[in-house]
């Protein structure tokens, strides 16, 4: 590709010229215009900037993460639908998508769902709930929190920018395996879009990981020792440990791939001494901890939910903590199970296979304890419990499929088949997504001040639960029929088509489930007075977040509680301890636009690096650096909240 100093690899051909790039561009512009129109009409620009975008309040940041993840979820589901439709049509035909386009779709589907949807939803819920559960007012580094959010958003924007400029996304699969992602086989910029959107959001995730880790270690309420923390905090802590140790590997590995592509280095090329297998090893050394990052928070959420709705302490708290730790440690030792078929030999393969199977032990312990919690308790089957039962079933089923593949000779047959695809979707849908749905429903009254409609919630569950089986059981079967993943067409003599069609029907059912959830949000909002949460404790909760009003005041706690037992709030309720009324002043962080400015500079730097525009890259980098330096000289990043103001806020909420 020819390069121009001012515009790098950009040419007029980079502008949209396919139906989907034009469509995508039009959609983006339309949505942007509509939002801008509404904001102008309601004169809400200043409000948006002051109250939301520049906020350092983890509750606001959490909500923004959730909204962003929701938008990306819509995009990812669109990709999924297109994949399903193509595979249902393409028996002895090319279907409606070219091979290359199809390959771009599943690549972006994977990257979006992993990096922006699941991570986004989890960071959103964690921002809201972790400070509340540990009795803190904020994260350890409020500014970094804002920066992390905006870096993630800029990564998401960069990933979707190809619709407008470039016209193509990577065709390599979500992890950009070498040497397919190298210059020899991919000379354009589309792999660079993947690399830099991952770098930006990866940096955001890393900062969030550091932030939550330090918060949980350093900012707990007095008396809350580690073994008195709620299990959601414990599993999140484990996930944060995984983030800080694994994400640097992703950063370094994609950097090396990028160096191969931009400076013609030879880390992973086919030839010149490059080692394509090394990329696979490195990327999965990140990749495997990543999938545990996606499920550990869900485990913690479900522990909270089952305890609350069973009116019972979680069974075996100590075991549950050690199970989470064991999963965390083991997740570093299993990465090779993603490529048993690369020919490492029986000794190496067996080691990794057996260690993988060991993860079933803490998983099993958790399942037993969850069931035991229900057994000894008095269960109220509100909709979060429906998601919980669905999760238990899918976790066992998907886990079984995982251990099935942990045996190398079995894996030789099902590797890269639809059986594999069905397994990991079972885990991501059944554990991570169900966890997000359950957690959102559970904490929704705390966040918004009103409950979600229960009937619609249960209906959504049924559609997702049944839809899951109709979608993914055929995929497990297809794996056994020799169906490789990522095929854009196939011969009808394979007899795969009927199963693909059934699977697509399942997708339609799931899509109805998503639609129901959107309806649930809208209708619950309309009925918010009827569903409002007056007490702050709608479920008779056990942990500290239920101590505050719904939603909490912007400072969370007027007085930081003293904790002496494991289920601090439950204890307070049993002992009927009155809330403390002696208010003392404390500091809170001010809002700042610096997170946005740095992320915008970083976005332009990323864009420039994709298109090989050195001057713009330098400008972006220097701009971001300058902002950081300016910020470091800002002495007025916090403000004092006086006791009188606290008194005023508390009494207006009926607490004073």
């Amino acid at each position, binding site marked *: 590709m020819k390069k121009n100093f001012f515009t790098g690899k950009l040419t007029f051909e980079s502008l949209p010229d396919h139906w989907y790039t034009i469509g995508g561009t039009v959609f983006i512009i339309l949505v942007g215009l509509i939002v801008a129109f509404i904001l102008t009409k309601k004169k809400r620009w200043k409000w948006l900037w002051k109250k939301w975008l520049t906020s350092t309040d983890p509750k606001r940041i959490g909500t923004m993460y959730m909204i962003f993840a929701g938008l990306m979820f819509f995009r990812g589901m669109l990709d999924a639908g297109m994949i399903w439709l193509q595979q249902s049509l393409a028996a002895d035909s090319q279907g409606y998508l070219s091979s290359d386009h199809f390959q771009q779709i599943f690549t972006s589907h994977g990257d979006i769902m992993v990096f922006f949807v699941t991570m986004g939803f989890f960071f959103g819920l964690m921002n809201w709930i972790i400070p509340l559960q540990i009795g803190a007012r904020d994260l*350890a*580094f409020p500014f970094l929190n804002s920066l992390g959010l905006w870096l993630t958003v800029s990564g998401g924007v960069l990933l979707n920018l190809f619709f407008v400029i470039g016209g193509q996304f990577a065709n390599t699969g979500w992890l950009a395996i070498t040497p397919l992602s190298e210059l020899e086989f991919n000379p354009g910029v589309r792999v660079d879009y993947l690399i830099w959107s991952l770098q930006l959001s990866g940096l955001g995730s*890393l900062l969030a990981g*550091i*932030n939550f*880790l*330090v918060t949980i*270690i*350093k*900012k707990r309420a007095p008396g809350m020792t580690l073994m008195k923390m709620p299990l959601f905090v414990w599993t999140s802590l484990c996930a944060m440990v995984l983030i*800080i*140790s694994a*994400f*640097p*590997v992703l*950063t*370094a*590995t994609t950097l*090396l791939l990028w*160096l*191969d592509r931009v*400076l*013609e*280095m*030879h*880390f992973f*090329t086919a*030839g*010149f*001494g*490059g*080692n394509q297998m*090394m990329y696979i090893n*490195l990327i999965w050394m990140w990749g495997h901890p990543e999938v545990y990052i996606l499920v550990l928070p869900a485990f913690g959420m479900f522990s909270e939910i089952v305890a609350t709705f069973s009116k019972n302490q979680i069974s075996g708290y100590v075991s549950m903590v050690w199970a989470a730790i064991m999963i965390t440690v083991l997740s570093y030792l299993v990465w090779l199970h993603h490529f048993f078929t690369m020919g490492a030999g029986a000794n190496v393969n067996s080691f990794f296979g057996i260690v993988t199977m060991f993860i079933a032990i803490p998983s099993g312990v958790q399942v037993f304890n969850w069931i035991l919690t229900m057994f000894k308790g008095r269960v109220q089957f509100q909709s979060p419990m429906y998601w919980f039962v669905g999760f238990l079933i899918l976790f066992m089923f998907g886990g079984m499929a995982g251990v099935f593949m942990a045996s190398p000779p079995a894996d030789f047959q099902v590797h890269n088949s639809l059986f594999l695809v069905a397994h990991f979707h079972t885990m991501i849908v059944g554990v991570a997504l169900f966890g997000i749905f359950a957690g959102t429903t559970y904490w929704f009254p705390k966040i918004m001040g009103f409950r979600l409609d229960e009937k619609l919630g249960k209906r959504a569950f049924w559609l997702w639960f049944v839809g899951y089986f109709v979608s993914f059981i055929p995929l497990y079967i297809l794996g056994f029929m020799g169906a490789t993943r990522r095929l854009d067409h196939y011969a009808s003599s394979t007899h795969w088509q009927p199963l693909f069609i059934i699977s697509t029907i399942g997708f339609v059912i799931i899509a109805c489930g998503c639609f129901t959830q959107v309806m649930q949000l809208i209708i619950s909002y309309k009925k918010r007075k009827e569903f409002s949460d007056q007490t702050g404790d709608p479920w008779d909760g056990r942990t500290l977040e239920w101590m505050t009003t719904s939603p909490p005041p912007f400072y969370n706690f007027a007085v930081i509680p003293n904790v002496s037992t494991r289920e601090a709030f439950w204890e307070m309720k049993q002992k009927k301890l009155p809330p403390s009324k002696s208010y003392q002043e404390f500091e809170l962080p001010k809002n700042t636009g610096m997170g946005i400015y740095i992320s915008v500079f970083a976005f332009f730097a990323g864009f420039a690096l994709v298109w090989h525009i050195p001057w713009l890259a330098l400008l972006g980098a220097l701009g971001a*650096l300058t902002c950081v*330096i300016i910020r*470091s*000289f800002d002495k007025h990043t916090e403000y004092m909240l006086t006791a009188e103001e606290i008194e005023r806020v508390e009494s207006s909420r009926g607490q004073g």
Partner: protein
Amino acid sequence: MVSDSKVFGFWVYLMTDLIVFAVLFSAFIVLRNNTFGGPSGRELFSMPFVLTETLLLLTSTFTCSLGMLFVHRNQKRSAIFWFLVTFVCGLSFLGMELFEFSELVKGGDSWQRSAFLSSFFTLVGTHGFHISIGLIWMSVAMFRIYLCPLTSDVISKIFRMALFWHFLDIVWVFIFTVVYGMGHIL
């Protein structure tokens, strides 16, 4: 204490940076013999040259500690002086490294020649990039000492810069051992 969290958080960040280097080190070790017919480390590296670079960095880490000492004693002029010495050492180190790189490129042994050279340039170059960031940070820190009263917050900021500098020195010791030492002897 707020500063306490910030220093702890910075240590956590340093560990993540260490993991980035660990990946680069492991890539180097895997690729160190993949010269694709080209030159190996033994043929390319000059030990006296590298020893000089090492001495520069080791000196700089010592003078950096001195600077930090004077910051704690609120002796601004001495602090700035020693950080300036550190800066000069660091800059000289960087200059030598750039010289080494340009000589290699001129001789046709750039990062494009082989996987071994790619990994060499990347590992050593990433360290050099971090040194550059460290030099910029040090300049800002010297400016800060000059301009601001040395409150605990300010001292904490300078301390983090010093930590970063020491961290880079430790990484260099590994580079010296693994890249140049092992490459030369083994």
